[in-house]
C-alpha cells in the first residue's frame, strides 16, 4: 500500500522532470496551414544544425496560431494575415505583447482543373465569381457548366485575405461575402484534390500547393492590364496582383531559443528554404 503511494510520487517526479526539460529546449510553433510546410522545413533544417533542440510545428489556421499565442500555448504563431486589433487588445489583457516579423511572401494562386478551357481572369471577374454574380463557366468563355466554388474555412488567413482583397477590393467598409453556396473545405490539400477531380471547380490557395493536377489561372488587375501567371519571379517583381506577406508572431522581444530560431528563419539560409518550399523570400 505505502509502496504504491511512494511509487506514485516517484512517477510524478519523473513526469515533472521530463516536462521541465522539454520546456527548456523546445519551441512550439502553431498557426497558418499555408505556412505549415515552410515551418516544418525550417524546423527540420534548424534541428539538424542544433542537436538537442526541438521545434514542433502544427497547423490549424492563422487564427488558431494567434489565439494559441495569446493563451500561451505556443511560442511562435505563424500567420498569413496581420493580427487584428481585437486580438492585440485581448493579448494585452493577458499580458502578452505580440511582436511581428515578416518572414516570406506568398502568391495566392487561383486554380482550375487542367481540362477547363478558361485560363485567365481579371480581378473583377474573380470577385464576381466568388460573390456568386457569375454562375456559369459559359459567361467566361468556358463550357456550359455551373461553377463550383471552393473556399477555405473561416479560420484560414487565406480565406480572410481573399475576402478582403479580392471580394471587397481592399475596401475596409466592403460588405461583399462569399456566396453561401461556396464549399468550405478544411484544408488547402482538400481544395487541391477537389480541383484535380472536378472540371467545373475553381479554388484558391498558396502557390506552394500547385501541382500538375491543377491549372493556375493567369490574373490581371483589370481588362487593360497584362495577365500574369503566379510564379516566384512575378511575385518578387510585384507583377502578380494577388500576393501577401507571411508573418511570424512572438510574445514580446524573443529570448534564447525563440530568438535564435527567428534569426535563422530570416537569415539567408532560412530564406533559401522559403524559396525551396515554393514561397517567395523577403530578401531576394
Amino acid at each position, binding site marked *: 500500500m505505502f509502496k504504491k503511494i511512494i511509487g506514485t510520487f516517484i512517477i510524478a517526479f519523473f513526469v515533472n522532470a521530463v516536462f521541465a526539460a522539454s520546456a527548456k529546449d523546445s519551441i512550439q510553433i502553431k498557426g497558418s496551414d499555408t505556412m505549415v510546410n515552410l515551418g516544418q522545413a525550417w524546423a527540420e533544417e534548424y534541428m539538424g544544425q542544433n542537436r538537442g533542440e526541438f521545434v514542433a510545428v502544427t497547423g490549424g489556421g492563422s*487564427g488558431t496560431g494567434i489565439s494559441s499565442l495569446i493563451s500561451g500555448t505556443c511560442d511562435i504563431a505563424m500567420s498569413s494575415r496581420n493580427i487584428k486589433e481585437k486580438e492585440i487588445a485581448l493579448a494585452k489583457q493577458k499580458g502578452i505583447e505580440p511582436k511581428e516579423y515578416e518572414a516570406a511572401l506568398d502568391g495566392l494562386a487561383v486554380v482550375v482543373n487542367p481540362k477547363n478551357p478558361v485560363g485567365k481572369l481579371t480581378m473583377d471577374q474573380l470577385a464576381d465569381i466568388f460573390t456568386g454574380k457569375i454562375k456559369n463557366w459559359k459567361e467566361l468563355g468556358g463550357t456550359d457548366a455551373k461553377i463550383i466554388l471552393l473556399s477555405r474555412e*473561416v479560420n484560414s488567413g487565406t480565406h480572410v485575405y481573399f475576402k478582403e482583397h479580392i471580394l471587397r477590393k481592399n475596401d475596409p467598409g466592403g460588405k461583399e461575402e462569399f456566396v*453561401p453556396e461556396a*464549399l*468550405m473545405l478544411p484544408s488547402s490539400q482538400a481544395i487541391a484534390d477537389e480541383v484535380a*477531380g472536378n472540371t467545373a471547380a475553381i479554388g484558391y490557395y498558396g502557390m506552394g500547393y500547385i501541382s500538375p493536377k491543377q491549372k493556375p489561372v493567369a490574373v490581371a488587375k483589370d481588362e487593360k492590364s497584362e495577365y500574369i501567371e503566379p510564379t516566384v519571379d512575378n511575385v518578387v517583381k510585384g507583377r502578380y496582383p494577388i500576393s501577401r506577406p507571411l508573418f511570424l508572431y512572438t510574445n514580446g522581444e524573443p529570448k534564447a531559443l525563440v530568438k535564435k530560431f527567428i534569426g535563422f528563419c530570416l537569415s539567408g539560409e532560412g530564406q533559401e528554404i522559403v524559396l525551396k518550399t515554393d514561397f517567395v523570400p523577403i530578401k531576394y
Partner: protein
Amino acid sequence: MRKLKEFFIEKLILVCGLASIFFVGVIFFFLLKEGLALFKFIKPVAFLLDRNWYPISEPAQLGILPLILGSLLVTLGAAVISVPIGVACALYISEIAPGKLKEVLKAGIELLAAIPSVVLGFIGMITLVPWVKNIFYLPTGLTALTGSIMLAFMAMPTIVSVAEDALYSVPKSYKEGALAMGATHWQTIWRVMLPAASSGILAAVMLGIGRVIGETMAVMMITGNSAVIPKMIPFGFVQSVRTLTATIAAEMGEAVVGSEHYFALFAIGIVLFVISFAINVTADLFLHREKTRL
C-alpha cells in the same frame, strides 16, 4: 488492515462515481455560461432563425438556421439508409442466421463500430465523393447525401446491436406460440417478433440517430460545408450543407475568446446538447417501456 483496504476501495469507487456526475455538471454549467452570453449581443429568435452565417464579418451575422437544417437533413438521410438495413440485419442475426454465421456477423458489426470516424471520412472523401458525383451527374460529390451514406455506416453498429438485444429479449413463448398456431417463419418474425420488440427497436433507432447527429469529423470532410438553406427534399440531398458539429469544429480555432463568434459557437453547443439530450431521453423512455411491459 483488510477492513481499511475495503474502506478505501469503497470510498475510491464512490469518488469515481461522483466524479463523472460532477464533470457532467461542470461541463453543462460551462456550456450554459459561455453559450447564453451570446444573447447579450443577439436575440435567441434571430440566432435560431436568421438565414445567414457570416461569423467573422463586421458586424457578424450569426443565424444558424442553415446549420440546423443541414444537420437535420444529413441525419434524416442517414436514418433512411441505416434504419431498414440495420433492423433487417438485426432480424437476420437474431432469427435466421445459423450459429456460426451469427458469430461472424456480430464480430463484423463490432468491427464496423471500431473504425475511427476520421478514417471513414477519409475513405469517403477518396471513394464515395467521386461515385456520388458520377452516379447522380452532380457538379460536385461533396453533398449531404455523401455525408448521409457515410454516417449510416456509423449508426449501423448501434442500431444492429441494440435492436438485436431487443429481439433477443422477446420471450421464447411468443415465438413458439406463433409457430404452433401454424404461422410461417416470416409471419412469426413480421407479425410477432417485430411488434413485440418494437419499443426496443425504436430505442435502437433513436440511439443510432443520436450517434449521427453528434458526429463531426467525417461530416466536415465530405459534406462541403456550405452554409445554405437546403432545398426541398429530395433535391436538398444532392447539394452541400454545413452541419452544427462541423461548424464548431472548423471555427473554434479562429474564434477570438470572448467575441460574439466564440459565444455563438458555445450556443451552437447548447443547441446540439438539447437535441441529443431529447433523443437520448426518448430512447430511454422506449427502453423503459419495453422493460415494464415484458
